[in-house]
């Protein structure tokens, strides 16, 4: 119980850190902290494999990716985020989020749900248990994940293609485009009130 409270405090403070950190790098690091504390929570909730996956995939792969991009995009720049300029944005968003979060907390606490007396089934949460499911009846989910990963890979290829291909495409586009409307004129037409 105490462990849970400590982990909860850790997780919450890390997540607050993510939101409040000035630099994206710091945010990313806080997020790693959050992920790690959650991983520990998973362990306590008898989800051993997931705890491992959380650490390996999230902290290991995803966050590293994040850090790469952060450094790529913010390298050499030391600028602070501009202050809020949307009227009421933070007040409304804050109040709403607090209320919504509060509602969840209240609901979760008020309606605890059944407590099963029976012991946990064997292989609950370990690699065997998950593996039996995922390579058994739930195999189709893995297929879906595979497809998603394929599309992610394709996405990266499409969005940030190699230089050579980019040139090819630009040439092809120029050949086709004789009267390409510049974004400015499009803007104007779109902003006009029409007839």
């Amino acid at each position, binding site marked *: 119980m105490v462990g849970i409270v400590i982990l909860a405090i850790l997780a919450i403070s890390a997540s607050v850190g993510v939101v409040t950190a000035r630099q994206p790098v710091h945010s990313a690091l806080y997020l790693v902290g959050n992920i790690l504390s959650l991983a520990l929570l998973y362990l306590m909730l008898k989800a051993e494999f997931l705890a491992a996956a959380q650490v390996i995939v999230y902290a290991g792969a995803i966050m590293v990716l994040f850090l790469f991009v952060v450094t790529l995009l913010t390298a050499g720049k030391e600028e602070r985020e501009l202050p809020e300029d*949307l009227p009421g*944005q933070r007040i*409304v*968003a804050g109040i*709403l*989020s607090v*209320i*919504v979060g509060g*509602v969840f907390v209240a609901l979760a606490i008020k309606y605890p749900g059944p407590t099963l007396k029976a012991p946990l089934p064997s292989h609950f949460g370990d690699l065997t248990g998950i593996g039996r499911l995922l390579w058994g009846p739930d195999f189709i989910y893995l297929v879906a994940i595979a497809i998603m990963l394929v599309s992610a890979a394709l996405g990266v290829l499409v969005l940030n293609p190699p230089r050579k291909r980019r040139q090819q495409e630009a040439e092809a586009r120029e050949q086709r485009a004789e009267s390409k409307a510049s974004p400015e004129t499009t803007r104007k037409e779109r902003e006009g*009130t029409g007839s």
Partner: protein
Amino acid sequence: MQGVAEIVLLPLLGAITIGLFKGIMPKKLPGIWASLLVGISFLVSIGMDLKLASLPPGHRVISGIFFPWITGFGPAIDWRYYLDPLSGIWILIITGVGMLIHIYSIGYMHDDPHKARYFSYLNFFVFAMLLLVLAGNLLILLIGWALVGLASYLLIGFWYHRPSAVRAAKKAFVMNTVGDAGILVGLALLYIHFHTVSYSGLFRIFDASHSSAFFEWTAFLLYLGAMAKSAQFPLHMWLVDAMEGPTPVSALIHAATMVTAGVYLMTRLYPLLRVAPVLAYIVAAIGALMTILAASSAIFQRDIKKVLAYSTVSQLGYMFLAVGVGAFTAGVFHFMMHAFFKALLFLGAGSVIHALGGEQDMNKMGGLWRKMPWTTWTFLAATLAISGIPPFSGYYSKEAILGETFNLGHPFLWLIGAVAAGMTTFYMFRLFFLTFFGKPRDEKLYEHAHEAPAVMTVPIVILGIGAVFGGFLGTWLNHWLLPAFRMYKGAPYAAIQYGPLWTTGFTLGLAVVAFIIAFILYIRKGTSTNAATEKGVGRWAFNAWYVDAMWTYLAVVPFKAIGNSVRQAEVGILAGVKGLGTVVWDWAQDLRPLETGYIRRYALSIMVGLGALLAYYLIRV
């Protein structure tokens, strides 16, 4: 069936053929063709009347159906014709006088480039008028009624370049429509209650009924039609303006035939008048009022045709007086005599106008008797007739009306009629003296004056014969009409009667006095026509007692005002429609900035939706 259709359709044939082929007809043909057709129609009419006469006196009706007009919601209304002695008289006058005026018109319209159109209209008028009088039910009568109105409109506006003619035509048409609408509602009422509008059917029902408010109102609505057509107060001003048309038209339509359609209608509906006694009295009273009102106006007019127009209105008043008090035969008698002498007067006036190159102002006339002997003497005969000087025709008919009015217990109406008769003498002789005697006031016009050609004088002379000797027809008319009037209840005093001798004497005395005054004023003193029209009674009378102004303020101005306010409302409605569109458009434009383009705003919007959904749920629980 046989004859009736021909009587009606021959003039229509003329109208159509002339209308269609006027482009390829020789110049003179339309007049001759039109006159010929009306002449044949006249002959057929005589034949039909003879046929009618061969029937036993109490059953002189030739009636039947051509084909149904409308069916489907109750008893059918048919194209029904109805020839009885009453309509027999009318068709004779219409075709007979009509033919004479057609012939006269050949001369009168000789120089007009549009005379083919003129004859087409004239034939169309004869057709419509015949349809009116031969109709066997009120609905067909109404069709004829409206078509004569149309013909009148067309002919008044014949010279459509003249703004005054156009205005007069419009006025005539609209005023006549008032009457049409009255008849329309009246006959709808009758149909709703009795499921028939044919004369025979209605008359049987009237016979079996007692007077009631329903009949009074129905009769009033029908009388409204008669009022409009026959220029009874307050719907009479159009007739005076109608003199904008060619003079033969004034003679035929606005004196001899069409304007007496109201008389015909009221006479025809004599069984209805029995069950609507109040209305009958109103008819008589308004008739009497008209006699004196119009006569007073006639006294002060300068335009020769206007004098005659007011005179017509006045004479129509006599006829309505007769109808209203129940002296039906006398009324018809006066109609016949009036057709002769008033047509004659108009044709004579037409000759004068023709001779003077279109001049109508009596101030520019005078001394024409030397130049136009035929016209002058026939005109004199007609003047004597209308003045009621025995033994001319007018004397008999007018005395019959006045006498019967007196006999039937309406001494006040009689007095009005008698005084008006005196005034008639005065204004007619004023007209006669100013036109034909004295010195020529406009030498230039006088120089050019000439007698009309034979084609014009012959009809005048024929009519003159009627005007002089027509009075002797009274007895025959009694025999002819009385059986017809006795077929249904409602005409107990239809026979022609004359009043006590002193009443005749009184009227005659007034006439003589009026003649003397006119002689003194216009022969001896040479008074101007403008005299006494500047102020007082004279001014009022000259302006026809400002009835036109009354209409302007009672109808035209309010109608236009309504029109204007309606236009305001329309602006409002259209603005409302447009406004609604603008509101939606503006609303949409106002909403657009909500779509700010900021992702965080969008996320907030999602959050707001989430909050709302949760709140909705929590509040419900």
